[in-house]
């Protein structure tokens, strides 16, 4: 596990130029976009960088050698989930720090608890999205994976659009959901979201392990 993490850190550190560009873009965006978008942008970029290490492993038929090292399928998958989680944590913290700095430059006041709630919400959402990418990359590889990812994101966008249309067609369902959520405390909503995300991530982890176990190199 430690060896795999070292490998992935070395691989993404090769992209330090891109990382610098991302930092500059994020800094620019933090002046024009809402805080949650900036945190989400940075966390998502870091998550995608994490999953892209699978393509590096696959590049030039690298998998057979990698799997001949003291590594099994389960450890490989676990490392990918952990690596993405680490990068997203760094991305989220960096995004939050950037918002604080921008607010100070703009002379605005910021509420730390508000930023913390952005961080938690964005971290959970982005982590879920990134974890969905891992089994897709493992199953379809870098090339086909990109197409499947686009279909997947399209599906999410369509589902979100459909959800916004429901109130106009029949306001009952969405109203009930909103009323129900409003009656709960923010801490409870956060806990429910975190538990649900954790369960989905566990499912995605098991799916990824099963994909890797079926793979032949």
């Amino acid at each position, binding site marked *: 596990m430690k060896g795999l993490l070292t490998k992935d850190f070395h691989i993404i550190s090769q992209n330090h130029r891109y990382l610098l560009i991302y930092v500059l873009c994020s800094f620019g965006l933090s002046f024009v976009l809402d805080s949650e978008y900036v945190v989400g942008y940075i966390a998502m970029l870091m998550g995608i960088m994490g999953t892209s290490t699978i393509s590096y492993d696959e590049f030039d038929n690298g998998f057979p050698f*990698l799997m001949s090292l003291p590594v099994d399928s389960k450890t490989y998958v676990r490392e990918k989930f952990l690596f993405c989680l680490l990068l997203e944590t760094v991305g989220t913290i960096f995004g939050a720090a950037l918002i604080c700095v921008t607010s100070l430059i703009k002379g605005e006041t910021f509420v730390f608890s508000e930023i913390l709630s952005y961080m938690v919400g964005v971290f959970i959402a982005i982590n879920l999205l990134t974890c969905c990418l891992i089994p897709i990359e493992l199953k379809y590889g870098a090339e086909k994976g990109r197409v499947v990812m686009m279909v997947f994101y399209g599906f999410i966008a369509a589902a979100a659009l459909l959800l916004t249309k429901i109130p106009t067609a029949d306001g009952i369902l969405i109203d009930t959901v909103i009323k129900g959520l409003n009656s709960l405390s923010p801490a409870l909503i956060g806990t429910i979201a975190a538990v649900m995300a954790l369960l989905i991530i566990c499912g995605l982890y098991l799916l990824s392990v099963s994909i890797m176990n079926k793979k032949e190199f």
Partner: protein
Amino acid sequence: MIHIENLTKNYTNFTLQLSFDLPEGKVSGLVGKNGAGKSTTIKAILGLIKRNGGKVEVFGKDVSDMTAADKENIGVALSDSGFSGYLTVENVIDILKNMYHCFDEPMFRQLCQVLNLPLDKKIKEFSTGMKAKLRVVTAITHNAKLLIMDEPTSGLDIEARTEILDILRDYLVKNDDCSILITSHISSDLEGLCDDIYLIHDGKILIHEDTDNILEKYGLMKVDAERYEKLDKSHILSTRKESFGYSCFTDEKQYYRENYPGIVIEKGSIDDLILMMTKGETA
């Protein structure tokens, strides 16, 4: 070290079906033409493919039950797979340090220096020979008890081949209980290194013989049609029709030398073994 019993792997147009053993302290060579099943066998030993039947044991354990600790005792150099080309040798050192408990960093650095492998250059910028040397250095610097080398000298010039073979010989001298399974197209590489040779063809083992026996007892006889008719064929393994008559491959060249004076018998080589047993008409 390795025990394979009736290993079966089915592909659409190819079936691998073989058994073999690699005892402790031995060096075995797996030879055969392209597509004969050498790399598939190596992959089965490393658990990289799912077998359809049979038993594959490494260190007395089924290969599917191998733990990370077991795998630390295996050094692998594959012909077409290695560390990502985006890494440098310095990165590889860092990875191996965190991957293997017994990684010998001073030895790795020393070998890189001897073999002129730059530490800060990306692997994708390496020549074919440099990549091959790095694969072998990676395999032998963590005190492995079993080395699995798939075509370690393929595509290399004589100088690079000699360097790689010398590294392997040195490793054997220092680790006399270590076993090596090596595949190669270049017979001279195997003749100087292997204790025994397995000839694999169409997914099956055709011959298993000690290297010394191949070199001492096997031979290639060249005879005209008239002499061929009178020849005792009980020790002829395979025959091939030639413009001058027949080439006959035997595992008892001394017998023919004594009983057929004047017959032309060339010393057997692994190349002849591959060529005659896979192209010739077997008895």
